[in-house]
Structures are given as C-alpha cells and as structure tokens.
C-alpha cells in the first residue's frame, strides 16, 4: 500500500513530533507513505478568510501535484489541511465554472480524483488487525478523551465522518491499542484554532473548558489528530496556569504517538518529550523494558 503524504506546514515545525511519530509508526506497520513533491501551504484559515479563490487555488495546486505524482489517495494528517484540500476538491468537482477558473490560475488540469484521507481513515485502512498485531505495551491505565475538533468532522456532508455530533471512530482505534476511552461532551467543540496567536485569551478559555470537561469525565490524557488543536490544548496550558492558578496539567498526545507507545516506542523516539506538558508513565516504560530484554 503506497499512500501519498501531504505533511502541511505545521508538520515541519510546531508539530514535528506528529510527523516523527507518524513516520515511525507507519514504518513499524510496514505501510509506506510517500511525501508529495514540492507541496505548498494549503492556505489554511488565513487564505479562506481573505479570498475564496485564493484558498481554492492554493489547495488546488497541491491537488494537481498529487495527481501528477499519481496518488490514488493522499494523507493529510493536519485536520486543517485535510479540510481545506477536501473542500477545495469538492467545490472544484461541483462547479465547472469554478474548476475552469482555478485550473487557469494554477495553470494545469485538476481531475479531482485523488482521495484525500485524514489520519483516522489512514489507520482504518491499515486495519485494526494489523495494528493490534504490533501491540507490545499495556495502555489500559490510560483513560483517553478523544478530541476530534472541528475540521476533521465538519462539514459533515463533505467529510462524511461517522457522525457529526457523536463521532466514535477515533475511540475505536484508541481501544484497539489497549487504552480506555471516556465518554465526554466536547469531542467536537472548537478550541479557537487560528486565533491562537492573535486572540490568545479566547483560545486559552476555550481550550481550558475542553480540558476540564475531559478531566471531569475521568480522562487522564487527551488524544488529538490536529496540530492546531495540539498547539492550543498543549502549549496553551502554560498560559492557563497563569490564568487559572489551580490549573493542573493534562497531557495531550497525537494519535500516532499513542499508537507508537503501544508499539513499545518511548517518549523520545516519538517526540513526546517535545510537548509542553510532560507525559510520563513509569509503569509503561518499565513494561517496554521488560519486553525489550
């Protein structure tokens, strides 16, 4: 199985551990991912808030490249990139007029037949069996709150995610690797996303709410599938500490990092040590040593 890989800007910087752990895990699963040549930014929020055509064109370029490289499917691990690419493709496929316009701008044809998949679809494609074969560590002490955020599940009529309000597909994967999941309210609540820098206080408040809801429902870790969500939930906890004196830390892991842990990799290998909130489970570390012995 050869899947195209569109890392997206964050993967090269703020979310390099996402990229790191993903590649690691994919190797272990001996499922290759091939990076898209000369990919450019999808435009993210900034593009579509300023110009509809610009956002379509920026994503359009990458879609065209993917087709050139003959990708049947292309993974966009960042929920924002996934969302932008998917929506652009949808809009192009649904309006010949728009399509013609964008093709002219990026000056090449766009067939729009590459299947854009998110991180969860990726692991679904690989299959629970294959994943569970590679499980070494017992993660049962983890009570994970799966956080989908916005752009993974919405708009539902385009993403066709399992459910717009009560998605469960991430839970299923998390259960497969042996962690427990908690039933909570803010699975798809927004964390403030792009406002992270310019309107930090908004993001801090929203993220705080999300973290606390996870906690009250018994979670001891939050699992995310989006660099922006991670930045807001993990990095912003520093600010939370200043805002709310009583704030106690809540570790936030990327889905591949969790799977990596289950497979027996350690924090360093997976880049978990790069997180703002430290994540240590001595029991786990011990177990993995036993196995490696």
């Amino acid at each position: 199985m050869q899947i195209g890989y569109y890392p997206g800007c964050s993967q090269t910087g703020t979310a390099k551990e996402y990229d790191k752990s993903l590649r690691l895990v994919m190797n272990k699963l001996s499922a290759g991912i091939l990076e898209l040549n000369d990919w450019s930014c999808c435009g993210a929020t900034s593009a579509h808030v300023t110009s509809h055509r610009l956002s379509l064109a920026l994503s359009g370029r990458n879609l065209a490249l993917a087709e050139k490289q003959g990708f049947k499917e292309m993974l966009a691990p960042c929920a924002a990139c996934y969302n932008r690419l998917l929506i652009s493709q949808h809009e192009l496929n649904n309006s010949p007029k728009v399509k013609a316009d964008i093709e002219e701008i990026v000056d090449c044809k766009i067939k729009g037949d590459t299947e854009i998949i998110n991180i969860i679809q990726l692991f679904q494609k690989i299959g629970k069996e294959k994943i569970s074969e590679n499980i070494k560590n017992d993660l049962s002490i983890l009570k994970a709150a799966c956080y989908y955020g916005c752009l993974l599940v919405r708009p539902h009529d385009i993403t066709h995610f399992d459910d717009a309000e009560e998605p469960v597909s991430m839970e299923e994967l998390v259960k497969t690797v042996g962690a427990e999941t908690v039933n909570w309210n803010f699975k798809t609540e927004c964390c403030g996303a792009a406002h992270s820098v310019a309107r930090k206080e908004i993001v801090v408040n929203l993220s705080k709410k999300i973290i606390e809801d996870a906690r009250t429902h018994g979670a001891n870790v939050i699992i995310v599938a989006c660099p922006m969500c991670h930045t807001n939930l993990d990095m912003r906890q520093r600010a939370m500490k200043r805002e709310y004196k009583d704030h106690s830390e809540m570790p936030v892991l990327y889905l591949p990092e969790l799977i990596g842990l289950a497979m027996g990799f350690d924090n360093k290998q997976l880049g978990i040590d790069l997180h703002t909130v430290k994540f240590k489970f001595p029991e786990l570390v011990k177990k993995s040593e036993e196995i490696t012995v």
Partner: protein
Amino acid sequence: MKIGVFICHCGENIGRTVDCARVAKAAAFFTNVVYSVDNKYMCSDPGQNIIKQAVKDYKLDGVVVGSCSPHMHEKTFRKAVSDAGVNPFLCEIANLREHVSWVHEDKEVATGKAIDLVRFAVEKVKRNSPLTTIKVPVTKRTLVIGGGISGIQAALDVANAGYEVVLVEKEPSIGGHMSQLSETFPTLDCSQCILTPRMVEVYQHPKIKLMTYAEVESVEGFIGNFKVTIKQKARYVDADKCSGCGTCMQKCPIKKKAFSEFDEKLAFRSAIYVPFPQAVPNIPVIDTSVCTYFKNGKCSMCQKVCDREAIFFDQKDELITEDVGAIIVATGYKLYTIDKKPEESEIKGYGEYGYGKYKDVIDGLQFERIASASGPTSGEFKRPSDGKEPKKIVFIQCVGSRDESKGFSYCSKICCMYTAKHAMLYKHKVHDGEAYVFYMDIRAGGKMYEEFVRRAIEEDGVKYIRGRVSRIYEQNGKYIVKGEDTLAGVPVEIDADMVVLATAMVAQPEASKLAQTIGIPYDKYGYFVEVHPKLRPVESSSGGIFLAGACHSPRDIPECVSMASAAAAKAMVLFGSDMLEREPTVAKVNELLCAGCFYCRKVCAYNAIEIKDIRDRSGNLIKQVAYVNDGLCQGCGTCNATCPSKSVELIGYTDEQIFAEISALY
C-alpha cells in the same frame, strides 16, 4: 346534422383578446353549421335562452359553445340543450377562455386559435351520438380506516345517520393518540374523560362493525361499489368468550421484556396485554415476539388461568371482505421520534440534543404520559432517569419541524399549543419549578389559543426565549442547554433537570403503501392529498374516498373532528341517492370484429371486461368475445388504444371522432 355555434365574450374575459364576432362569422361557414352567434354572457339566463331559442327555430341537433373551460360550464350548457329537447351529449365546448384569451395577448393570433378550437369542436360534435347517463347502484355502507378520534367521529356520524359502518383499526384498541394525552388545550379538560365515552359508543353502536387489530389488504371497485379485503390479525384470544377480567395479564410471567407502546416506552407490559385499562374492546392480544409459548412452547400460563377458555394459540390471521360504497381514510400521524437505540430508529439526527442518548431528553408524547394521571408516574412529575422531580424543565419547539436539514420543511402546527400546555401543566403541579420554552415563532391561530399562550406566560410565569437551541449535554446530573435569545441578542445557558422536545408530526410510515393499495395520491411527506385545497379539502381525487384528520396534514383535535364530520357528510351525500349517475363515456365492444385476444382485459384497471360466449341457435359455442360491464368501466380508453383489431371503442372518444379533430387542424 344541423349545428349551432354560440361564442361567449365572458364579459371582457374572452372578448378582450378574441374577436368573438369574427369567430362566430368564421364558424358560420363550417359545414353543417346553420346558425352562429356571439353574446356577452352565454352562461347567463338570457344567454342560455338564445341557445334554447335557436335549437327550436333552426331545428338544431348539435350545439358548440365557445366559452370557458368545460370543467366550468359544460354541465350548464348541456342542461340548456337538453331542456330544449336535444340530447345533452350532442353539445361540445370549445375552451376559449382558459386556453386562449387568458394565455395569449396578440388578438390576431388568439382569434385564429379560437376559430381552430371551434372547428375542432364542430368536427367532434358531428360524430357525437345521443347518449344517456349510466346509473349504477350505491352500496350504502362506509369503511372507516383508522380508529383514532377522526375515525371515531366519522364512524359515529355516519352510523347515527342510519348507515352501516365498518371501522378498521390496526392496533388492539381504538382511541389513537388522543387516548394517550393528559389534558387538552386550550380548555385543559381531561383527554380520556371526553374520549372514552365516544369509544364505548362506537363499541356498542348497532350500525358499527368494529374490527381492531386488523388492516386493509386491498380495495377493488369504484365509487358506490367498493370491495374491500381486510386482514384480521390473530389475537390468540376469542373475542366472544373473553370477559376482559385481565387475570391472564396479571399471571403472564413476561414482565420486563416488552415496552408499553401506549406509555411510549416509559413502562413495560406483559406479553398478553391490552394497550391500556380503558381499551376498547377490552380484549387482550398476545405479542408473539416476546411470548414464551411462541418462543419455545414452554409456558401457557394465560391459557391455564383463563376460566373462560378463551385463549387459542393456534388462531390464524383471516381475510374478510366487505362491500362498501364510500371509504373514509383516517389513519392519523406518528410522532417524529428517535427510539432509545438511535441505530434502530428510522430517523437520525439531533445528536446535538443527545436525543435518544439521554434518558431525560424526551418527546412530547412521553411528557403527556408522565403528566397523565393514568401514566407510569400516575401524573406526578418524575424524570425517567432517577425518578426525581425536575425543578427546571426546558421545552424546545420545532424539533424536526421547519428543519429541512434534519427533519421536514413544514410546520407541525400543534407544537406551539401543546408546549404551552405542557409548561402550564408542569407549573400547576410543581409550583417552585421553572419552565423555559425555546421557540422560533408562536403560531397560536385558533379560538382561545393566543389567550392560552399568553396565560402560560403572564399567569403561570413560563419563560419564553426566542431562538433555537444548538446543543444539550450532560454535566454532573444537569442538562446544559445552550441557546441564544435572538431578541436580546444574548447567549443563554440553562442547567435543566429535564428537556422536552416538541418533535414533529409525521405521516404514518405505511401511509404511502396504503395510498397505493386504495389508489389515492399522497405528497412527498406521505400525507394524503385532497382534490382541491380550497373547495374540496376532504375529498381524495378517487371518487368515494374521503380524508379525515392528521393523515392529511398536521392538525389538532378540533380540526380532526370537524374534518371527520365533513368526510362523513360527503359519504352521506353519496348515499342520498339510490343510483349513481355516471357519464356514459364507457367502452363498447364490436362483437363481430372482436377476435377474443383479451389484451383489453389485461390492461383494464377495473376488471370491467368480461368474457362473453357467442353461440349459434343450437347453442354451440362459436367464439368468445370481450364484454364491457358498464357498471365497472370508468372510461379511461386504455382498452381502446390496446385492442389490435380496433373492436373496442370508447364512446365519446372514438377513433373516428379523434381523427376528425386531428384532420380539422389548419
């Protein structure tokens, strides 16, 4: 043949765009036309007299009137003609208003078209033959489908007028949704107290044959003469023997397997059961899906304890046929619900309200059961999850209604009122409780309705908030309801103990199937469609089939009752005469030509074509030919078009006549 042509100006309506005088002149030159004239109002008395006079003076035996649509005044003119002593079917109408003057502007062109249409009519009338209307007998019995308040009302009205009624109800008891309601708006009188007597009246009425736990299988025939096949589902209880003592139900070991449909899944019922204590008839049925005997033959407790020996496990469904002249459809509605297991429910959506997930997020009917003295909480307000008394209830309107993305575009009409009632009932019982209603618009059109809603707000202190709720989630025992007050422009968050969703009224899931069985049209929602939205609101387009109640559209009790009485009246109008007059447009067979291939029988939708033996004097069979039963033939002419030897002809629309019209083109 001597034909007279009469062109009507219809005041200015035709005259404005059609040069009527010129049309009349032109017509005068058509062959066989001996008289042609135009007049301001042909349908007026003087106008009709012109026709009658002309018929006498010129010995006319054919008349063409150029006027409004035949659907308007064909009857009028045919009567005028027959008054003048000419067979009414020798009168044809050219539609110069709806099809010419009202739809075209250029006077030249319009006049030209008018002349053409008159020519058509002349050519057709030349070939018309004098006909007499067909008379068919009327079976003065009515079938009422559905035993809710609409069906009950219709049945009683017809029966009290002295005509027999067959009332078919698919549930074990009549009563419908109204029997589930606690109290009714705007008077707040107890629903069962006013309904139960009616149910008993139906049961005891000598003219009403009540068939519960039964469904209509098929309908044949036509207005005045329907043959209906009804499936009586097996009750496994002999209705004649059963005394309704209820011992079987008490002794039935199945206690917590089956949800009570009547209590909207808020309580359980035994495997052998009557839906509710006041059920009519008070005869139990066995739910074979949960009954141990039907599972593994082990238990037969009910049979043992029944001193009347009324229980028969080997009872079978039976088919019963009834002859009726009219059918009143009153199959009612269903509430848009999501069952406790969303994956099993037919409608998805409203995950954001936790509907189907949270025990205390319930729908309107469930609230009725909780509020009802005969309900699972015997009228005390206790929430389903922990039986605690809710101190704060949020009511949300338009759930599934006015929502094209998750539900239906239409307004369910009754929710505004019943929500106000719910809030009121709650406040009356729980004085320190708070009730909030999220609404989009308050539609309280009806006698004392607006006043009722005002009372809820002003006297009972129900808080109304204008805006749709976006999300409901549970947080330590409370349900957080996120809304926006769009009037104040402020976000609202309420921590409620219980949430009641005023979910939409939807058509019965099997409605479209029934519609096809009995041959009436239905809309995209599954509601049955009337002939004319303004002037014929209770008649279906199939003659003799009438509509009553919520099977037609969302409506409240008084509207259902009045519609039911209207439908009953329509049925009785039908019974007013012993014979039905029918247009003589029926098929006729030319027995000499007929080759007896009987293709016509295959295509006839009314089984109107029979096989007739042709014998010589000594009685030997020479051949078999098709024979049309005038009583059954509806005159669609499909047989005519199908017949290879052209030996079936539709009177009034013969090939000859139509060819003549075609040839008259330009």
